[in-house]
């Protein structure tokens, strides 16, 4: 099984304790699977789970978006810039 690199930001990074994590990954899996695996592997993320956003190749991605291990993937809470 291949692995997927996921960048984490803000409170998601603080809770997971790392700015980037590696998840076991099969091509064809979706954003929904990513969120589930992430919170299984990093249970400290659970309080944030319902509000976590996923970006694939610099675009926001829905739960049914398919993710490949070559994609640039990031996971973070709702934004609060400005």
């Amino acid at each position, binding site marked *: 099984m291949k692995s997927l690199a996921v*960048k984490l*930001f*803000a*409170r998601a990074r*603080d*809770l997971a304790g790392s700015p980037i994590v590696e998840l076991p990954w099969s091509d064809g899996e979706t954003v929904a699977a990513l969120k589930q695996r992430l919170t299984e592997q990093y249970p400290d993320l659970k*309080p*944030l789970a*319902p*509000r976590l956003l996923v*970006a694939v190749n*610099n*675009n*926001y991605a829905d739960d049914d978006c398919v993710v490949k291990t070559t994609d*640039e993937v*990031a996971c*973070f*809470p*709702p*934004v*609060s*810039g*400005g």
Partner: protein
Amino acid sequence: MISLTHNPIDYHALTESVRSPQSGAVVLFLGTVRELTAGRQTVALDYEGYPEMARAKLEELEQAARSRWPIDKVAIVHRLGHLELGDISVAVAVSCPHRKQAFEAGQFLIDELKVSVPIWKKENWADGSTEWVHPGGEMTKGE
């Protein structure tokens, strides 16, 4: 002109960059670190960004604004890192032929920036605690 910076924002240079004889109206918006938020006292904010995606989203915002208003020039800069009270966190400057367009486009850009550009702020409260700000749910104490 889109940029992210860890240095103080030079909004004067930013504003000069959008002025032109084709445009009778320039609107500049500055977001600054406010002392009171919902009655609690802030002493500083820390801004973190996802730089590649933030730049991409800001470019998209500029294009979206240009498709809606006859914009001459746009400049947006967001600061990252540690900001003290009164510091400028974001500056948006836009020039248009007429003032209504410039006001609308400026407001659109800052409104959309706040909902779609991956940047986060962490409050440093006067009592020494810190707290990530995550709209759409109650704020949760930072570790």
